[in-house]
């Protein structure tokens, strides 16, 4: 059976249309195919959480840590799906820095204080026996592209950027190298989520199931054909580089970015690990129990209906 969402209006806040974000785009198309009236809003600096609090979007498809921050601040937002399931960062370094340990005495660029990737980088450094701030200077730098520029300009010797950003840079012939993907260095962290306020989800259960189903369908579609993914991305992402997109696909497959199993797609333990990490890093003041706000039931229900097999979305 199919979903009939005619008459359902929903505003979805997404990240910028990047290669990384192609899953959300496709998901929205499927929802529209089922008759939903979807308004997609690309939110640049404003977080999906802020947009939800301000009552300007119903559902957000954004970074997972937004849910944790929201929960810590008493905003009851719940994850019901994930456009990307494993960590989407790459650690990039200047030539000469070939492993994390080489960063001793060097400077690295992360996002601002309170930013997730700074905390992540600190964790990785500690894992490699380096003391942040003492052995390594941590320089907070604006956004992913500014960090990339900082490494090109030799201002920092390593930084963390989105995987697709790194691949685009590499395709443009940037003078930098990959130290590794975060999903390999620190496996099991959740990356992005489709979320909304609990009350909204409960009132719109039909929509929630549809979103979950579309989520599974998209992942199936991505897994089943590289060509389709590449050509779809080339059509929908401005300035995408075909070579980089193709490479991105391979990396995504390698690190399991788009699973079709509900349990893998939305893994509570990934959130729990994230929450613990944030708490340890001092970014969260409270310990959080992820099981309270990661709700895979819609995904499971959808899987039971046969979603994730490529049959639902035609």
């Amino acid at each position, binding site marked *: 059976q199919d979903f009939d969402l005619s008459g359902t209006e929903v505003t979805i806040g997404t990240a910028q249309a990047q290669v990384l974000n192609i899953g959300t785009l496709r998901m929205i198309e499927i929802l529209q195919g089922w008759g939903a009236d979807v308004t997609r809003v690309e939110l640049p600096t404003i977080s999906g959480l802020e947009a939800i609090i301000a009552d300007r979007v119903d559902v957000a498809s954004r970074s997972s840590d937004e849910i944790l921050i929201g929960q810590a601040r008493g905003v009851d937002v719940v994850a019901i799906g994930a456009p990307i399931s494993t960590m989407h960062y790459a650690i990039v370094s200047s030539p000469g820095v070939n492993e994390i340990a080489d960063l001793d005495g060097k400077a690295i660029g992360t996002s601002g204080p309170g930013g997730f990737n700074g905390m992540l980088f600190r964790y990785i450094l500690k894992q490699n026996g380096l003391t942040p701030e003492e052995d390594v200077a941590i320089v907070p730098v604006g956004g992913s592209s500014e960090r990339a520029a900082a490494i090109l300009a030799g201002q920092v010797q390593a930084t963390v950027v989105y995987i697709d950003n790194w691949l685009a840079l590499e395709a443009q*012939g940037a003078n930098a190298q990959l130290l590794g993907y975060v999903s390999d260095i620190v496996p099991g962290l959740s990356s992005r989520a489709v979320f909304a306020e609990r009350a909204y989800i409960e009132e719109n259960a039909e929509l929630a199931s549809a979103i979950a189903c579309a989520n599974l369908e998209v992942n199936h579609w991505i897994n089943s054909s590289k060509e389709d993914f590449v050509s779809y991305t080339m059509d929908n992402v401005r300035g995408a580089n075909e070579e980089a997109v193709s490479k991105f696909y391979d990396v995504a497959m390698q690190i399991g970015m788009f699973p079709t199993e509900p349990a893998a797609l939305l893994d509570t333990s990934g959130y729990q690990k994230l929450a613990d990490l944030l708490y340890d890093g001092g970014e969260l003041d409270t310990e959080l129990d992820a099981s309270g706000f990661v709700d895979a039931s819609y995904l499971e229900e959808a899987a039971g209906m046969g979603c994730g097999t490529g049959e639902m979305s035609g």
Partner: protein
Amino acid sequence: MKKRSKAQVRRDQIVGLVIFLSVWEIAARLLGNKLVLPSVSQILAALGDLIASGELITAMAESIWLLIVGLIVSTILGFVLGALVARSRTAYWMLNPYFSALFATPTIALVPLVLVWFGFGFPGRVIVVVLAAVVPIMFSVASGLRDDPKDLVDVARSFGVTGELQLLYRVRVRAALPVLLAGLRLAAGRGVVGMAVAETYLRLGGIGGLIKSYGSMFQTDYVFASILPLSLLGIAIVSVIGRIERRLHWT
């Protein structure tokens, strides 16, 4: 001062442009790093591509509409506020500090508030443009109107112009026009910036969205090709103002 003819100005500007572009092209080629500084020819190629795909036209249309509406609102508001502040002590002390404060507050910092109150629809974006452009207009109006053409005000008063309002539009605004237009020029530039902020920070769209998208893909040549129309837009507004100024100027 001797005025140079329009043709002379045009000719000088073209020569200047040619020199500027040549220097750029040579520098870019010497540097040989497209990521850092794409050459003029690369940018033009990207521009051609953007035009051919229709992306640029759609984005420009969206942005220009936003800009025009925003600037009109800013001008009206800026005039009223500027006149008030220049002509009334009460208004000056009641309004000026807050507008100075607003003036100094980066528009980006206000984006979340705009989101709450106006959303990221068209009204919200217009508000961002107005926030960026209104205070400079207000300041130059105030500055211009404070520069009191006493003799001419006397003339006007003696010939039956009564009330601050009439004096304002019959003499003061006219006498202050050069200052006003100079301010308006800069405000228009600010408006363009506000527009881009609205389009990159409130909600991606228009020409600002274009720049941001290509920026995150590190397509520097496309970034320049998208910034170019923005700068041209700035110049276009400035030259429209210049034309008005020429027409209104008496020497």
